């Protein structure tokens, strides 16, 4: 009887302890869940604030004159960012002309022409990753030494060259990944019909994954559109409109930097306006190219059926 009571006591004590313990564990589990959720909120607050401030402060600066005319006198708040918008568009366009084909072809090599054991492909992949990690300002210095000093002047060519170096590894990486997604049966079917390899790669593999490749290019372009540091030592920035490939031009990020560094509130407001234009530009670029990619993939789909 006494013994029985004791066992009962022990059991209840153990049960109590387990209950207490598991309650603790549950509370701790909930605490961690909430903590991690707070982390997410912490990360989102800056984004919300940045978008809010850019729109709030930038909308006031927007006007027809602001978008299309050259900057006015220093600190006056007159004029606009016309040359900067123009320069950014030209620089991005030229950079894509070099960066997109080279990047895509390098991706094609990695996905279609290399076996993974081959050391050239290994080095290419490694150097590609290394190139992604090189700070953009260092690439800017390279452009300064390789092009600005050789050609004798700051130029949009040097700027575009530098931006293309930043684009290549991004485009190559995404292209490789998307091309690898093309099922092998498609390639085999094309070979079975007697197509030479280059036609298989071009007409089946590349055209079939066009939208993926375009996504990579869009990613690279939107990254490059906001680059400022490498432009300091290549295209320099001016307040004039484009006057030839061998002379300095302006760019939006560069203009934002100059405006923000001035001690005048009017310049700051213009800086916010330029930031808003830059964000809208990047947004528009990605939306437009994405729609283009979708449209094209639908037509190819129709063509094959």
């Amino acid at each position, binding site marked *: 009887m006494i013994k029985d009571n004791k066992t009962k006591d022990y059991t209840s004590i153990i049960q109590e302890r387990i209950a207490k313990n598991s309650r603790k564990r549950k509370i*701790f589990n909930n605490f961690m*869940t909430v903590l991690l959720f707070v982390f*997410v909120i912490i990360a989102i607050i800056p984004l919300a604030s940045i978008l809010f401030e850019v729109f709030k402060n930038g909308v006031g600066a927007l006007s027809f004159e602001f978008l299309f005319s050259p900057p006015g006198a220093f600190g006056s708040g007159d004029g606009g960012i016309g040359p900067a918008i123009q320069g950014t568009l030209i620089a991005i366009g030229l950079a894509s002309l070099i960066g997109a084909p080279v990047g895509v072809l390098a991706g094609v090599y990695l996905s279609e022409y290399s076996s993974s054991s081959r050391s050239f492909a290994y080095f290419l992949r490694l150097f590609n990753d290394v190139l992604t990690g090189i700070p953009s*300002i260092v690439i800017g210095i390279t452009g300064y030494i390789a092009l600005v000093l050789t050609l004798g002047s700051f130029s949009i060519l040097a700027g575009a060259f530098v931006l293309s170096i930043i684009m290549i590894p991004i485009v190559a990486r995404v292209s490789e990944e998307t091309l690898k997604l093309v099922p092998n049966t498609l390639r085999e079917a094309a070979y079975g019909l007697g197509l030479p390899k280059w036609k298989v790669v071009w007409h089946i593999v590349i055209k079939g994954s066009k939208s993926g490749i375009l996504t990579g290019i869009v990613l690279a372009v939107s990254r490059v559109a906001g680059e400022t540091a490498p432009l300091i*030592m290549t295209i320099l920035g001016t307040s004039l409109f484009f006057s030839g490939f061998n002379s300095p031009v302006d760019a939006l990020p560069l203009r934002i930097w100059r405006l923000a560094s001035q001690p005048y509130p009017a310049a700051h407001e213009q800086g916010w306006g330029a930031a808003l234009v830059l964000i809208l530009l990047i947004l528009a670029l990605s939306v437009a190219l994405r729609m283009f990619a979708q449209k094209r993939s639908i037509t190819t789909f129709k063509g094959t059926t």
Partner: protein
Amino acid sequence: MPPKDSKNTHAELVKKLDLQNRKSFIGDKFFKGLVIGASVYTLFMVALVFFALADGSVPIFLKEGINFVIGTDWNAVEGRESFGALPYIIGTLVSSTIAMAIAVPISIGIAIFITEMMKNKLGTILSFIVELLAAVPSIIYGLWGLFVFRFWIRDYVEEPLHNTFGDFSLFAQAPFGLDVFTAGIILAIMIIPIITAVSREVIKAIPHSQKEAAYALGATRWEMVKTAILPSSRSGLMGATFLGLGRAIGETMLVTLVIGNAIGLAAIPTSLFSQSQTLSSIIANEFNEASNDLHLSALIGLGLVLFVITIFINVAAIYIISKVSKSYSNLRE
């Protein structure tokens, strides 16, 4: 008549096929050459970066020698030139350390939350929003930091810290809002999406059996994360951290706008609220105003130092990540 004709067509056909074969052969050669050419061009770019920097920094290393890396003086005045990079190396390390200390726990936490605790639509939306952060150009972070965040941090964090713990040297300096602390925090905000994205991939790659085993032993969700996810993804998360660190060290514009741009000895931070300068920000600040060739060469030399540091970090990151993906494929087998 008919036999002759058919013979003719046959010959023609053979000729045609032959031509076509040769054409596709040439096409193959040409296309392969194009593809390899693009690859070689990519390799060449890395070499170009290195040789351009090495070539441009020869004069400064000839003049200063090892003093360029360990010196603390920075003077570009004609006749009294002296260039030492140490303050900027320290400034770079301090600002990125602050950034990493904030960004790593938050990013890994977000990655765990999105992949394990919020597998529904809300999780997808949250991860999309975090990815949006990565699309914002760094110059806009800088603008926001200079005109908005600077005042938040000064009034709500730095002032209270200074008033309460002002006796400690870490918080001794009167806060101004533009200092290594601000730069570190904004850098952290910028690299959170980068570290989060890689961490998510790492955590997703962990075999389900591991998680299920933890649950089967009665683990709560957090205990599962602690016992099944964190240990087996440790090196992958390390790789993600290194990638973020590489980005933080090389970031230029936002740092230039918020770090206060001190020069020489003053750029070595003595407290959290010191003005400082990083390798990249001093290049951006002085490149167009370089007074002579030696000054320019010194800035290019800073670029070389920065290049070497980031190469080390990135290669380490690549190595760690590649090792991880191998060990995962072993686990699955």
